[in-house]
């Protein structure tokens, strides 16, 4: 994993509540056996007409939606399925953070494993971000856990401490768990009652 670094970006507003994973990447694109190539179908049904032409008024099809790394979404972003294809599609498109007032649990966990930072802000900060001029730059500093706004205010956000360390140091979570093999073996050997009847 590549260590996560501070970056500055414009903000792409998508102020819709409860954006579910079926909107982020519709299920018909999950027949792939690879992680790649999902970005072209990110928000597919909002982004394209039935004949495949881009819808001109959808934010990702406008200049504002191009080349930015922060998506500003409505409450409960990522609800629905456990598909990790959602953060894969978002990161492949270029996003490194999604800012919202809340996130669905499974999406949040999946995002953090793919260097996509789910940033939870208050409704007041959310409204302030929505009101920013189109070209305003925001700086995301994961180490400091801050989102610096153009007016100089630094908004703090929470992030799981373990995930933060993994992201900043480029530590691979599976690698870390594999090192716990002795504890896993001890647990398997020492269970008082295992309900498992499969093995």
């Amino acid at each position: 994993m590549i260590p996560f670094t501070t970056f500055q970006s414009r903000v792409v507003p998508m102020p819709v509540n409860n954006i579910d994973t079926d909107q982020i990447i519709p299920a018909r694109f999950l027949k792939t056996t690879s992680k790649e190539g999902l970005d072209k179908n990110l928000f597919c049904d909002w982004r394209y007409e039935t004949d495949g032409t881009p819808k001109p008024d959808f934010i990702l099809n406008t200049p504002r939606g191009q080349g930015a790394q922060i998506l500003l979404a409505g409450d409960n972003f990522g609800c629905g399925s456990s598909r990790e294809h959602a953060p894969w599609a978002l990161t492949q498109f270029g996003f490194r953070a999604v800012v919202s007032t809340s996130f669905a649990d499974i999406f949040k966990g999946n995002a953090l494993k793919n260097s996509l930072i789910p940033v939870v802000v208050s409704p007041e900060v959310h409204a302030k971000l929505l009101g920013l001029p189109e070209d305003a730059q925001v700086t995301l500093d994961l180490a400091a856990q801050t989102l610096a706004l153009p007016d100089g205010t630094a908004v703090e956000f929470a992030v799981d401490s373990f995930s933060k360390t993994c992201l900043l140091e480029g530590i691979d979570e599976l690698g870390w768990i594999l090192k716990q093999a002795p504890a896993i073996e001890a647990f398997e050997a020492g269970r008082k009652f295992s309900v498992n009847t499969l093995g």
Partner: protein
Amino acid sequence: MSSPLRTLSQKVWDAHLVREEAGAPSLIYIDLHLVHEVTSPQAFSGLRSRGLKVRRPDLTIATTDHSIPTSDRSLPILDPIAANQVAQLDKNCKEFGVPHYGVHSEHQGIVHVMGPELGFTQPGMTVVCGDSHTATHGAFGALAFGIGTSEVENVLATQCLLQRPSKTFKVQVDGTLKPGVTAKDIILAFCAKVGVGGATGCVLEYAGSAIRSLSMEGRMTVCNMSIEAGARAGLIAPDETTFEYLKGRPFAPKGAEWDKAVAYWKTLPTDEGAVFDRTVTIDADTLEPMITWGTNPGMGVSITGAVPDPSGIADALDRDNVEKALAYMGLEAGKPVLGRPVDVVFIGSCTNSRISDLRAAAAVLKGRKVDPKVRVMVVPGSMDVKRQAIAEGLPEIFREAGCDYREPGCSMCIAMNGDQLQPGQYSVSTSNRNFEGRQGKGGRTFLASPLTAAATALAGVVADVRSIL
């Protein structure tokens, strides 16, 4: 200080702690890992690139359900991308030694139907699957939740996951369900009450006399949709209904092991006086059949109710959400859903495709004809459900009524396999999600129970099953 009194989910959590460290997530052990073709290929690729094995193939079960056609199984899969994905799971399972109940297995089925019915799912277990409806298995008093593909890889490699405990949330459902009101209506009512994100960060426990009265299949329907309120898991304490269901199933404990298991399972229910972070109550006595009107499962009303009027909603984004949903669904504010014409009725999915669901629908359809304008699909959840349905003569009832009775799979719940709505079409569906395009691009979904679905199939419009009971 944690209380010595613990909830069911806390007991299961505690029994699976491999390593705990202040400030860090806990390492928890997984008893049962269910795998399907959609969320596993990249995880197996990850193992291969790291040179890792599946640590406990004996605790791992695979089936093929999402991408496969529900038409004649003797024919090849026409969609080359789906065929490749299905073949890839076969290949991965062979290479890594994972038992696979594949397309031609006599036990193939939707992962959350075949797992419990074969007795894999048991009380007190931790169960995971790369699928958010893994919450289904909580009906047995297992801590069961959906995971992403990175976590599928972690569990394949180590049989463990890094997790932080969730908040506890009790859903108390007391009273007696009236005729025509089912487990599906309980969970749709709960989702409508708290909203699609209302239980985020929580593990639910369903309790109360109405829950105790449900069959295991009804309990699975309830737990299945925990995620639709944002909860990763939803549990029900194991009791005699649970033990009765499990006894004699192929992978349930046998003989002395059974007695030992039951003794342990009886220790699992929430301690008297244990405190939940949050509680809501639902009155089963006054519950009516429920139906969704919008584009998430929290947007539901009773079948006789009206869709909301967005003009009365203060918050701008919430108002936009309702306006957007009504526009997508082509519905008018303040009007009922009852009586709206539909194009398709879908009876199936991991929520409602078990034998009791098919029996309930068949009882309504028996000796009657569905409206010829409506395509009615009935998709059993597994090969075992299919066999049982044949033994009971259900396929004949469905066919004589004019239904399309199909082979087991996820089918039009997720519309990955060609079973899908056309743009603009309406369905009444017994599945779990009514998101935009969920059942096919541009399709519009009303979620409801198998009884409501069957009554709608006959009427050709959204119907109240109580009028024909």
